[in-house]
């Protein structure tokens, strides 16, 4: 098998190939770097390649394997990290022109742990500036410009973990680490036809990651398959004294589907708009498949609270506080998107009473909303109701009838998995979202594995690669 053939496999499969000596870590790493530096750059998915460090780590992985030492299922597997995750040897610019000279001399906890698991960091991946904390109107709200969708280069890859979605979707890397505060993970995962896991708040320590919203930021993996995400989460999860929000306890990746019948609560979704037809059909088929596998489906509804308002108030206040120096200084004007600038300014004017009301409400809502899991094990809904919008159109105009459950999911810190479930009429990927209770990653990942054992949406490849202009 050639390294180029191995390139489009998921991280778990790549790990098996490396351990079986079908491809070496150095060969695969080199293929990843070559693809990222050409196709990745043309897509706008690449923030910074890390060739020297990557080849050094890959050579070490190969030497260890030759000596009979394997660090585990991800030994020697290349991956990319969103450019808000610190790593020695490359700039960490947070996608922001105002932080163009920024470099850290340490690795983020997630990078340390993936290295300990044998993974090879090949590149920093593009992102929306400052993870879009102030809100943004344009896909080009990034110092690397707009990130193109591998399925249609005239469409957007989604954000803010744009490069992670595009790079995995284009088959340039089998695993990427991104982040979500609200939508930054699930949106690019759905738009790019990849599998993305937003873990429970606190699951993955955030030491070394850019802080946008202290009480809502999460780090997590994107891969080809639920198995890729499970293995990466197993490597990254667990307490870290440098992040007091990190949850205790390690995470053990499920090695196979659940093996028991689950109760799947189907969240209400408004499919009435004509642009939702393809998502309605794909979701109906997905739920039908889960039912045919023996799982029970039932209607589920979250208690009515202003989830979105509370979430947006918290992100606005925390985001502007986290970047107060920038907002107060001349650097703000360097940001590419005026909506982002205005949003960060407005966040400084959110009354303390409103922020505290949102936080108090959140604490009150959390146990009430959790009761939905008394009658079901997993919640299901379309990740979004449409495929990716045009890359050059204002998101204020194109982001309509999108649906999604990011408001409650992120406010409550619940884990969520997006797996490919089909395509819209333009041939753009659609995602199925599986939401679990806190610490419920094993259940949603197991169900995702089962879904992917029965479908091949995740195995479809995007069309012709992008070429550097």
């Amino acid at each position, binding site marked *: 098998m050639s390294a180029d053939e191995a390139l489009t496999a998921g991280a778990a499969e790549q790990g098996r190939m490396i351990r079986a000596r079908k491809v070496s870590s150095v060969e695969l790493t080199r293929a990843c770097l070559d693809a990222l530096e050409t196709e990745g750059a043309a897509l706008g998915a690449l923030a910074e390649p890390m060739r020297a460090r990557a080849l050094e780590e890959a050579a070490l992985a190969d030497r260890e394997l030759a000596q009979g030492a394997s660090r585990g299922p991800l030994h020697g597997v290349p991956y990319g990290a969103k450019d808000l995750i610190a790593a020695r040897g490359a700039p960490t610019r947070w996608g922001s022109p105002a932080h163009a*000279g920024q470099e850290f001399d340490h690795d983020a906890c997630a990078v340390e742990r993936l290295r300990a698991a044998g993974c090879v960091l090949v590149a920093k991946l593009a992102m929306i500036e400052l993870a879009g904390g102030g*809100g943004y109107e344009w896909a080009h709200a990034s110092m690397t410009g707009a990130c193109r969708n591998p399925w249609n280069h005239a469409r957007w890859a989604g954000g803010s973990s744009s490069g992670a979605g595009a790079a995995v979707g284009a088959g340039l890397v089998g695993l990427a680490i991104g982040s979500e505060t609200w939508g930054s993970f699930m949106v690019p995962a759905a738009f790019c036809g990849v599998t993305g896991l937003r873990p*429970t708040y606190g699951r993955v320590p955030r030491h070394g990651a850019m802080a946008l919203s202290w009480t809502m930021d999460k780090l997590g993996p994107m891969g080809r398959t639920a198995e890729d995400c499970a293995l990466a989460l197993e490597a990254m999860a667990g307490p870290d004294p440098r992040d007091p929000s990190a949850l205790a306890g390690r995470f053990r990746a499920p090695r196979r589907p659940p093996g028991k019948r689950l109760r799947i609560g189907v969240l209400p979704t408004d499919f009435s708009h004509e642009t939702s037809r393809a998502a309605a059909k794909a979701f109906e088929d997905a739920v039908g498949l889960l039912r045919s596998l023996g799982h029970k489906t039932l209607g589920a509804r979250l208690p009515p609270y202003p989830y979105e308002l509370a979430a947006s108030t918290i992100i606005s206040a925390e985001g502007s506080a986290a970047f107060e120096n920038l907002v*107060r200084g001349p650097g703000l004007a360097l940001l590419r998107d005026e909506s982002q600038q205005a949003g960060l*300014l*407005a966040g*400084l004017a959110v009354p303390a009473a409103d922020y505290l009301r949102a936080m108090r409400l959140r604490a009150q809502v959390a146990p009430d909303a959790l009761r939905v899991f008394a009658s079901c094990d997993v919640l299901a809904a379309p990740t979004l109701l449409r495929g990716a919008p045009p890359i050059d159109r204002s998101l204020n105009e194109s982001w309509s009838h999108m649906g999604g459950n990011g408001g409650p999911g992120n406010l409550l810190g619940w884990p969520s998995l997006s797996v490919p479930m089909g395509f819209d009429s333009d041939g753009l990927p659609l995602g199925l979202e599986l939401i679990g209770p806190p610490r419920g990653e094993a259940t949603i990942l197991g169900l995702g594995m089962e879904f992917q054992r029965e479908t091949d949406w995740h195995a479809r490849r995007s069309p012709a690669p992008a070429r550097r202009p």
Partner: protein
Amino acid sequence: MRDEGAPRRRQVSRRDLGKAAAAAVVIAASAPPSGAAPAEAAAEARVAALEAVLGRGVPPALRGTVRDALREHDEAWRQNRDSCPLSDGAEPSFAFLPVSLGERARVGR
């Protein structure tokens, strides 16, 4: 850590806050009392207060967007505040946890 884009933090003085409050009062008092105008004037007052705290004007190109964002924020809370009442002075703590306190205690933190 190196952050070349970040200026030194400017301290907010009591005088800043006083000026901001005064600006807010002046603008709110001069607002016409009909229709959507009070909300508009209140948002405008908040922008003025923000400018006083910042010690500089909000760039003209951003001013309308900032004002609209604040107005929409205020309006959203005005519509939703009563739908989720919170009791005065009743909670021992409002720390948000994604897991229950019992589970957190069980797993060691």
